[in-house]
């Protein structure tokens, strides 16, 4: 090792927004003050995944894992850990065992133990803005192999052996898409990377691009060589400035190194990549809408077939894959398809990156082998549900997916099992819900999203989504009827069958899946005018019971003037007409005298 110590600071978007950059500058300042810059290197890396605990600082070689680090901690880290060799225990994630004073290593942390990092192999280990670091970890080895040792058919066969399926949602075999585009006859073809990640709560692709941009550039170049294209486009939403910046840096460096552009590695192969910014329309993640937007037209889907492999960008055969699919490819070609196929299930090979969020102790970005169970993800990696609450369901596949309940926690997760459960893999969002979450309310949240993001082209999606949304509002307001449920099912079915693209076809999924697993909860809203989770504001009431000692605190904190009345030392009363159901009285009452019904 060139340096005695390495300090790795997570510089993903989440940690950056919690002042990772300031931590970096403070560490550099401290090291400089102690004249240690020649023996300690500080690196800003991509996402470590453990976002719950960010900002994260890792020190090598002893793998100390510091969490929730603040800029003012830099001085102590340098003076204690770097100079004196003593860990700063208060910042360590795994507090050391008292007897041995030895802290557990990274791979023994529960959050990381079950993870297998293929896609995220470099995230958190390298500085994404330094191409040498990517190369040092076998970067561009696959490209070299492809340019000089492999034919297009070899590449496709290797991908076939790997069993890689598209990570953008539908799980179409990557090798087949590649083969179709390769076989399409045309003088000009294109490679496109779909980086229009838009599911609420999902940030897998962003993290890959921020943490390991060269893996995507390398894979796109390989794809170009495979199908016979000389130009690639990365369609990325403008809301991802850090990812865009790192891609720009990476493209520039790859060109300087002769790994992109004219005559790559003197092989005679030319390939160039351009970044195209999207304005953030969710529907532009749909490939035909994405291509329309890329061409400068309004982002609206067109029916397939013809598929982009035959008629894509500017009518030319186009290979379009998502970021995560691409990021797998260099690893597969370096280590072999069989290596990759060792992970996962029969029908779904390899690993999958999930953004684990919601009511979960360890929220963050995880990469797990396909076939892992939800129980392992939620309880072992995720650390379970916080505050002793009960697990209710997990939503996979974002707004297109569905809910999976406790009954199915032991189902191995892969493309096909999730479909069987009425959900889908989607791009990998995973939102955990506990007993306080109301499924009708959650469905409404997703419908609001899809209604907002519908492109407006086809009538089932445009009008059906709005009608579904209105019924959900009616139900959460306590005005729903059994007939509304029947109509929601009819509309939902029509949307699934007659919508033009996956956005509309899957928009009713949250409702259909919650109706399948939680019909009783809908019935409670409709028949009893009650929200069992206590979430739907119009259906809850706050009362003050006889435990009230008349301390007047609730009345003082209540934001509505005159809503809570009562004499000192007398039981108080809430005026139901005036109550806005903010719950402040319940929170402040020290005597548990305010109850929510």
């Amino acid at each position, binding site marked *: 090792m060139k340096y005695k110590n390495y300090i790795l600071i997570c510089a993903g978007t989440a940690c950056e927004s919690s002042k990772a950059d300031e931590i970096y500058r403070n560490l550099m300042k401290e090291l400089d003050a102690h004249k240690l810059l020649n023996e300690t290197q500080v690196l800003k890396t991509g996402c470590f995944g453990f976002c719950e605990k960010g900002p994260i600082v890792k020190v090598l070689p002893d793998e100390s894992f510091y969490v929730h680090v603040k800029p003012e901690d830099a001085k102590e880290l340098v003076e204690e850990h770097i100079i004196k060799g003593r860990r700063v225990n208060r910042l360590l994630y795994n507090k050391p065992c008292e007897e041995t004073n030895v802290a557990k290593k990274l791979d023994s942390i529960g959050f990381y133990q079950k993870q297998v990092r293929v896609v995220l192999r470099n995230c958190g280990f390298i500085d994404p803005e330094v191409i040498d670091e990517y190369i040092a970890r076998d970067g561009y080895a696959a490209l070299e192999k492809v340019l000089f040792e492999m034919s297009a058919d070899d590449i496709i066969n290797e991908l076939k052996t790997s069993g890689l399926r598209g990570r953008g949602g539908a799980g179409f075999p990557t090798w087949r898409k590649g083969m179709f585009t390769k076989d399409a006859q045309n003088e000009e073809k294109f490679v496109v990377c779909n980086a229009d990640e838009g599911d609420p709560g999902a940030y897998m692709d962003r993290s890959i691009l921020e943490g390991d941009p060269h893996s995507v550039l390398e894979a796109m170049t390989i794809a170009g060589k495979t199908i016979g294209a000389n130009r690639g486009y990365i369609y990325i939403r403008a809301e991802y400035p850090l990812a865009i910046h790192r891609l720009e840096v990476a493209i520039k460096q790859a060109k300087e190194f002769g790994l992109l552009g004219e005559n790559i590695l003197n092989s005679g192969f030319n390939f160039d990549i351009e970044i195209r910014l999207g304005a953030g329309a969710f529907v532009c993640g749909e490939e035909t809408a994405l291509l329309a937007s890329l061409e400068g037209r309004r982002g609206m889907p067109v029916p397939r077939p013809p598929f982009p492999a035959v008629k894509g960008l500017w009518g030319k055969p186009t290979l379009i894959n998502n970021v995560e699919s691409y990021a797998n490819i260099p690893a597969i070609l370096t280590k072999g398809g069989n290596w990759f196929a060792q992970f996962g299930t029969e029908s779904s090979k390899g690993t999958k990156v999930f953004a684990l969020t919601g009511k979960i102790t360890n929220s963050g970005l995880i990469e797990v082998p396909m076939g892992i169970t939800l129980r392992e993800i939620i309880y072992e990696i995720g650390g379970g549900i916080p505050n002793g609450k009960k697990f209710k369901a997990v939503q996979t596949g974002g707004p297109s997916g569905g809910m999976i309940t406790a009954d199915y926690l032991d189902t191995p997760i892969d493309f096909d099992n999730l479909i069987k459960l009425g959900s889908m893999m989607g791009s990998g969002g995973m939102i955990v819900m506990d007993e306080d979450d109301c499924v009708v309310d959650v469905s409404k949240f997703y419908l609001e999203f899809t209604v907002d993001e519908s492109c407006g*082209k086809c*009538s089932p999606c445009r*009008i059906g989504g709005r009608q579904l949304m209105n019924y959900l509002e009616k139900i959460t307001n306590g005005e729903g009827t059994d007939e509304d449920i029947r109509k929601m099912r009819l509309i939902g079915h029509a949307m699934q069958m007659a919508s033009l693209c996956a956005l509309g076809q899957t928009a009713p999924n949250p409702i259909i899946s919650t109706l399948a697993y939680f019909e009783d909860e809908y019935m409670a809203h409709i028949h009893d005018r009650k929200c069992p989770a206590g979430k739907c504001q119009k259906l809850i009431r706050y009362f003050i019971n006889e435990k009230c000692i008349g301390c007047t605190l609730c009345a003082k904190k209540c934001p509505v003037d005159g809503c809570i009345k009562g004499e000192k030392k007398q039981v108080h009363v809430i005026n139901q007409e005036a109550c806005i159901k903010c719950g402040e009285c319940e929170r402040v009452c020290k005597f548990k005298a305010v109850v929510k019904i």
Partner: protein
Amino acid sequence: MDKMINLKINGRDVTVKAGTTILDAARQIAVKIPTLCWHPDLDPWASCGICVVKINGSSKMLRACTAAVEEGMSVITHDTEIVEVRKTVIELILSAHPNDCLACPRNLECELQVLAAEFGIREMAYPAIKRNLPQDVSTTSLVLNPEKCVLCSRCAKVCQDVQGVWALEFLSRGENTRVAPAADVSLNDSPCIKCGQCSAHCPVGAIYEKSEEHVVWNALRKPDAYPVVQIAPAVRVAIGEAFGLPAGTVETGKLYAALRQLGFKAVFDTNFGADLTIMEEGSEFIDRFVNKNGPLPLITSCCPAWVDYLEKFYCDMIPYFSTAKSPQAMVGALSKTYYAQKMGIKPDEIFMVSIMPCTAKKFEISRSREMSSSGQKDIDVSLTTREISRMIKSAGINFNSLPNEECDSILGEYTGAGTIFGATGGVMEAALRTVYHLLTKKELDNVNFTDVRGLDGVKEATIDVSGTQVRVAVAHGMAHIAEVLEKVKAAVAEGKETPYHFVEVMACRGGCIGGGGQPYGANDEIRKARAAGIYKDDEMSKKRCSHQNPHIQKVYEEFLEKPLSKKAHDLLHTGYTARPEYRW
């Protein structure tokens, strides 16, 4: 030879050309798949979601309008589930559509209404979604009511792909999506050329002609007014459709009779004006072709949508334009001058109404000061075929049992050359018949120039006129004109001989017979039938060349002196100005 594909539709064997859509394959064996956004003139947009079918036993559904047939495919076009899905989609569309059919301009002629009837809709299944969008009434010709729009895209697609105008576009997203000119300017400030193809392609009442029937009714009841009327060539072969007759039935005589019954004191024929146009335009051509007095090609100018298009998109080519007014405008000018003098009527008592297949004619009558050459508006109101058929119906006139009547003389009698103005290529053909005479002083043995007829977007021909080669081009469907004009411009830029001497342009596909004001439901089959009616009218005419029209000769003798005279210039010619595509 085309590759053929074998498939089954509802268990029946079908063999169709590769690339055929399931929808077209089904139509070939008379299996109807309901549609709303699909239109035979346009590339499928696949937005309505009604034409869904199942294939190969899959539970998923596909859009028949875009899915191509595949070898061995098995298609089911209807089962309980498909019908239920279609009905739900229709009910959803109805929920976002105002429920005011009785007061709608498309009442009884609405494709959504038909679907609702066919699917047995008996209640509004879903609560109404109101958008409260304002109407655009800015143009002289059209009303855009986005509240009624079902976003089928037909108006925008015909405007963009067929007409190349791009006045209409989708604005906003999701449930706020609406059709409007780009940047949300008003239609009148947009590139709109008022051709009305949007209204002819709209399945519902979202965009329609600006109705002026009430103005005409009022004129008809004024005791001191002298209402007169003229009918355009293409109206006679389409008006029958409004009364249940097949497309292409020539109903000139019944239309004259109906107009008299409505109260018009004189019934003229725009075909007379067409003959006059040929005299003026033909002479203009000779002047440029023989005397080199002006640039070639000479480009026809009788289509007001085309005039608007040229002034906006190709204003640098204004010098090529014929200055001759359209037949409508010529009849208008003469009715308030020559006719008024002859009959001893005060020109300001004459109320001139034109019955046109066209919405742009409403714009033409006030497009420039030359349109008031008589000292007042030469034409007071221009009605579309659709409007006049409603007037006839509301008067209770039994159109089909009317006797055939003759038009008034003068400004009525026409030759076959005048009538073919109604179809693409007709102006060119009529001009060639007279140009031949003007150049050779001889008469043609065969007056039919079939090379310039038909529905090809651009038709080119070289006509031998006693050893002189006249190169002509005919374009229709506005988007096709660019091809012709760019060739001319390229030749000019390279200093080469012009590729054409004479160019005819009509904005609408098929020419005026396919005009934006014609009865609804036009497609190529109907266009062909209407055109056939036009050519039948031509063939049945005793005289088939404009210069042979004795009444035209008489007008020159009595009033205009000769073609291109000072008086002819004052009354029968116009000028053009460059106009911006967008006005802000």
